[in-house]
């Protein structure tokens, strides 16, 4: 547990959190850069078609999260090996964060990341918007480690597990509503 109160490594835990978070931001930004390059392929499609497809994917994400439809999503069904943290803690945390931040090196259990990734592919936004969305993805992942660290208590994990079904469903709906508001104006 990288940010649990029982930290025993000879490196300050807040430093590990900082480099881990930096890795998350870099990883998210890199994946978004790739998405931006690929999004050029969708540019020739009419805007109405692209908007319709994005919102349809958003609705599918909400339905999948609610358990009303089963859609298998591609994911790298492996855990990042713990060995990356064993030799050098700071460098390992950076690598661990980077791999998590890319979103393609380990499990992706929720629907929202797929909706956002496909949304970026289809919307063909500017490079800055797309990359900052990836950076935002890293920020969102870093929030978990930060508040886990700030809670200073293992009981936080129980609260997180209890809230996860509500969180993933609410995030799916919020992503859909936000993109609908933005794209249909």
């Amino acid at each position: 547990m990288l940010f649990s109160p029982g930290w025993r490594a000879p490196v300050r835990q807040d430093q590990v959190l900082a480099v881990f978070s930096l890795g998350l931001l870099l990883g998210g930004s890199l994946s978004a850069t790739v998405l931006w390059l690929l999004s050029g392929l969708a540019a020739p499609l009419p805007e109405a078609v692209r908007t319709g497809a994005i919102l349809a994917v958003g609705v599918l994400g909400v339905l999948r999260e609610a358990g009303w439809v089963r859609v298998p999503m591609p994911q790298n069904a492996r855990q990042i090996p713990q060995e990356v943290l064993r030799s050098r803690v700071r460098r390992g945390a950076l690598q661990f964060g980077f791999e998590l931040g890319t979103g393609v090196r380990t499990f992706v259990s929720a629907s929202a990341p797929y909706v956002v990734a496909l949304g970026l592919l289809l919307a063909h936004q500017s490079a800055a918007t797309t990359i900052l969305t990836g950076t935002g993805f890293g920020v969102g992942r870093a929030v978990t480690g930060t508040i886990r660290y700030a809670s200073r208590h293992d009981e936080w994990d129980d609260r997180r597990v209890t809230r996860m079904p509500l969180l993933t469903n609410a995030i799916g709906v919020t992503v859909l509503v936000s993109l609908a508001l933005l794209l249909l104006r």
Partner: protein
Amino acid sequence: MRAAEARPAGRLRRGLTEPLLPFAALAVLAVAAAAADQVVLCWASVGALAGYSLSGSV
């Protein structure tokens, strides 16, 4: 002296680290940015929400 992990979290700390709180803040930001046609902020907030939806234990 009891170990830190054995002490109950304070009420304020517990409230401030409530897992639903970041979602609420990001959701307000994303919807408000969309309503105000702030494209970059909206997409970035939506990206952050997507990242937070993967709140695994780290």
